[in-house]
């Protein structure tokens, strides 16, 4: 592995780890707050998948970094300015419709990204992706079913779902942006060229929203910055909570 590729792969694995831990954390905020017990279980389940995925990506990143850091150093010892997750994933929990819509937008995205990543020439990335592909099928089914039910349920649930879609749509555009790092990896058959997935994502999400009687928003606004560490105000608060115990006891084991 050349130095440039190695550095890019480290950055890439970190980004994917950040995505997974941030969304996993947000979902975990629902446990014991769900609309009924079965949902508490389902939320815990999906959260476990995402946090588990984060651990695998960070573990690989730590190996590439080879500077003594562990998965926990990646998760707990970096501030929001260092985090490289997509903005969509750090948005607060919101109401049930907001969370399920965010989940749909993210789940469909990963259902397209992961099968591509599973073909990566980098065996480690491919292996993590291959494992995650299976979970993602279940995730998409779940968030799709929920958006159908909420969109086409009562007047109130419809209103909440449409509002969530309108509020979140502007954060989806950056999911398909490429930068130098990702381009280098895509050119070398290691990373995924996400710009090529945009049309398919739009098609699948639109079909689900339309069936749910939800209007697909126009692309009138777009917020960007997650991959450069330019975050919303939400991430700082999230990490403050997530990292407080770990950082209060420097160098300790748990």
């Amino acid at each position, binding site marked *: 592995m050349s130095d440039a590729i190695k550095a890019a792969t480290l950055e890439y694995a970190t980004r994917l780890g950040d995505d997974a831990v941030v969304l996993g954390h947000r979902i975990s905020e629902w446990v014991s707050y769900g609309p009924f017990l*079965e949902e508490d279980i389902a939320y815990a389940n999906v959260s476990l998948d995402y946090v588990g995925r984060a651990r695998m990506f960070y573990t690989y990143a730590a190996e590439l970094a080879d500077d003594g850091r562990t998965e*926990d150093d990646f998760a707990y010892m970096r501030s929001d300015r260092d985090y490289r997750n997509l903005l969509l994933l750090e948005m607060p929990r919101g109401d049930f419709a907001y969370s399920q819509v965010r989940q749909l937008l993210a789940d469909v995205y990963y259902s397209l990204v992961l099968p591509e990543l599973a073909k990566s020439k980098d065996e480690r990335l491919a292996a993590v992706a291959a494992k995650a592909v299976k979970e993602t099928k279940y995730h998409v089914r779940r968030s799709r079913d929920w958006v159908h039910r909420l969109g086409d*349920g*009562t007047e109130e649930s419809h209103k909440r779902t449409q509002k969530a879609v309108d509020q979140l749509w502007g954060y989806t555009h950056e999911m398909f942006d490429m930068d130098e790092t990702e381009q280098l990896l895509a050119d070398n058959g290691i990373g995924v060229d996400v710009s090529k997935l945009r049309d398919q994502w739009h098609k699948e999400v639109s079909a689900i929203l339309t069936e749910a009687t939800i209007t697909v928003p126009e692309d009138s606004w777009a917020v960007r910055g997650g991959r450069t560490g330019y975050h919303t105000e939400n991430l700082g608060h999230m990490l403050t909570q997530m990292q407080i115990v770990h950082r209060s006891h420097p160098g300790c084991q748990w």
Partner: protein
Amino acid sequence: MTPEEQNFMRKINAEEKIEPKDWMPDAYRKNVTRQMSQHAHSEVIGMQPEGNWITRAPSLRRKVVLLSKVQDEAGHGLYLYSACETLGISRAEMIEALQKGTAKYASIFNYPTLTWGDVGAIGWLVDGAAIVNQVSLQRTSYGPYARGMIRICKEESFHQRQGYEALLVLAQGSPEQKQMAQDSLNRFYWPALMMFGPHDSESAHSAKSMEWKIKRETNDDLRQKFIDQTVPQIEFLGLEHPDPAIKWNEERGHYDHGDIDWEEFYSVINGNGHCNRQRIEHHVAAHEEGAWVRDAITAYNDKKNANKIKNVA
């Protein structure tokens, strides 16, 4: 005794299980329902004190372990609610009783979880005490309850282990971590002993429950078992035992122990714990906030069914 009563008592005495469709005395049905629903509510309310630390778990591994543990507890709640429904009460009715305060849950969950150490202490001591009780309940006379306990106990031992391990790491860690472990032990040890309920002489339901084999061992016997097994565990952690009177009694083959503060026990049960109101309000708030979601499902299903009927017609 009517022939039905005779047959019921014959089964109880022969260690045969009572099944949902079998005849049973009303008081038996009531007693089992009360105990099972209380158990189910405990699983569910118990998600809160531990859930309080999911977002602050100090490592990714601990976060995953805690998430799966709390997920298990939700599963236990679900499973026990279904077992309860075999006796003719619905989950909605049980939840209403919980929220109105007519149904109880384990009072241990009225204590606050203040530090990460408390997550370890709960797994080790609270799940540990629950296991002692539940192992005994694997032989309870009501079939669905007994089978539920067998299934649930398998997961509970993982809960206790992860809690003890978390505390062991703290006990062997920095001075602050060790202090955290000791503090959690001190706060949760006595309430864990109280989980077995009052002395048998004071317990309202004990005698009849024993006769009907709903309960298989007395509160005090189960508590003694727990006290005995906990002493070497505390020693291994290198922590100080919270009960200065703990002392091996060669003659009894058990540890003697100090008096339990039953005034505190009744005080917390009667609403004076740090979290009694909070736990119920949390449950009510989540339930009420979920109302529009549950309505949406009903409306959606109604529409789909109406469409189906239209298509068939």
